[in-house]
């Protein structure tokens, strides 16, 4: 016993050090698994509030680009509305019998990014909407130019978003001009470039082709823009497609959170409960 106490006396700093390092390692491993990372997250009241105040200050630096982006999005939406109005009288109207039961699939709500990092291998964003505003985990975050990420953990007023620039993120994506799909990942190198894996070799690929989301998951609606093909790597008989993102991931501000209204129904089909 005395030996043991003596041992602890002698190595007390080392043991304390090892204990703390184990705590840190535990947190690191937790952080690298999706959905378990709620211990260390900037989506809490203190850091979220500080980031929001800082973001109010730094917002002024890129007002011009944000304004231009919003104006061009408005232009696009106005044109869409005009197109819709011109066809409404004749054909499409006939299919919607009961307007109350009109089958809306998605609802969009706006949010603002208050923290954005894109220089590490696993990037996260923080947005200023949380469970009080109806944000839950696994919702899509997009803007007018394309996809941004998936919400991962929500506090009452802030949420953490797993960016597409994260080595853990896998998103279903497909070519715009054909139905061939693959999974979108990031290799951690260039924040303007993501990679599309597992596209079958039969697919005809051309540089400059547009890639959109595939709609095979309950998170992203189909047809959200991602980017265009930059080059195609055909090493080892596998197609590895490098994609230039439409979004400038280093300059993001206003985003939309997409709520998939049928999510529960679809998930209950995929995971039937025991009866």
């Amino acid at each position: 016993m005395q030996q043991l106490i003596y041992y602890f006396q002698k190595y007390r700093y080392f043991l304390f050090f090892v204990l703390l390092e184990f705590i840190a390692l535990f947190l690191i491993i937790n952080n690298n698994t999706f959905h378990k990372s709620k211990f260390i997250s900037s989506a809490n009241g203190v850091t979220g509030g500080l980031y929001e105040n800082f973001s109010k200050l730094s917002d002024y630096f890129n007002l011009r680009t944000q304004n231009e982006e919003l104006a061009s999005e408005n232009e696009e939406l106005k044109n869409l509305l005009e197109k819709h109005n011109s066809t409404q009288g004749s054909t499409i109207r006939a299919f919607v019998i009961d307007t109350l039961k009109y089958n809306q699939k998605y609802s969009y709500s706006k949010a603002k990014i208050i923290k954005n990092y894109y220089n590490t291998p696993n990037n996260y964003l923080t947005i200023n909407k949380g469970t009080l505003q109806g944000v839950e985990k696994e919702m899509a975050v997009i803007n007018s130019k394309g996809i941004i990420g998936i919400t991962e953990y929500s506090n009452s007023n802030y949420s953490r978003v797993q960016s597409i620039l994260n080595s853990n993120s896998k998103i279903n994506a497909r070519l715009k001009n054909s139905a061939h799909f693959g999974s979108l990942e990031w290799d951690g190198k260039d924040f303007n470039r993501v990679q599309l894996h597992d596209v079958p070799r039969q697919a005809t690929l051309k540089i400059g082709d547009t890639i959109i989301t595939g709609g095979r998951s309950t998170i992203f609606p189909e047809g959200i823009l991602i980017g265009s093909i930059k080059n195609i790597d055909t090493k080892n008989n596998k197609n590895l497609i490098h994609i230039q993102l439409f979004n400038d991931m280093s300059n993001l501000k206003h985003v939309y959170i997409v709520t998939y209204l049928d999510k529960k129904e679809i998930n209950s089909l995929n995971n039937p409960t025991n009866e």
Partner: protein
Amino acid sequence: MNSVLYVAFLFLSLLFLQVFVCNNILFLGYINPYVYIAFVIFYPLKKERFLFLLVSFLLGLAIDFFLDSGGINAFSLLFVAYIRLFLVHVIFKKTEQDYLLFNLQQEPFGRVFNYVIILIVIHHFILFSLANFSSQNFSNVLTNTLYSSIFTAVLFFIGTYIIRKKK
């Protein structure tokens, strides 16, 4: 009391400097300085180390909270905090009696330079390896370590030079 205030000031100023200034620099798109390691360099030398280890861990953890990085900053800062005394023994040849009067500014620049560079390189290497968290892209880890270490060291020496000039 004075030293408690000093440590608290150091803790908070380095935390906010790191999170709101240094992490937004992104020189050439990806190079950031990690100046909060100055906490380990400036913290007064003491034989009793529990508090020092704990506070270093907490500073790293606080930065992790802001950066959503799990515990990588806590791990790497705690590691350099633990090896600091060994380095002081090896580089400055100091024993326990000298801790009270130890002052980096009175040491020869060559030794201080070695001491700071070793701490920075070890810290950055652990930080980037853990951030990468896989064996892929190892060359990225090395280049990141190299460039960020240079950046941090330059900022550190300029910063200490300015502070010393004022006094």
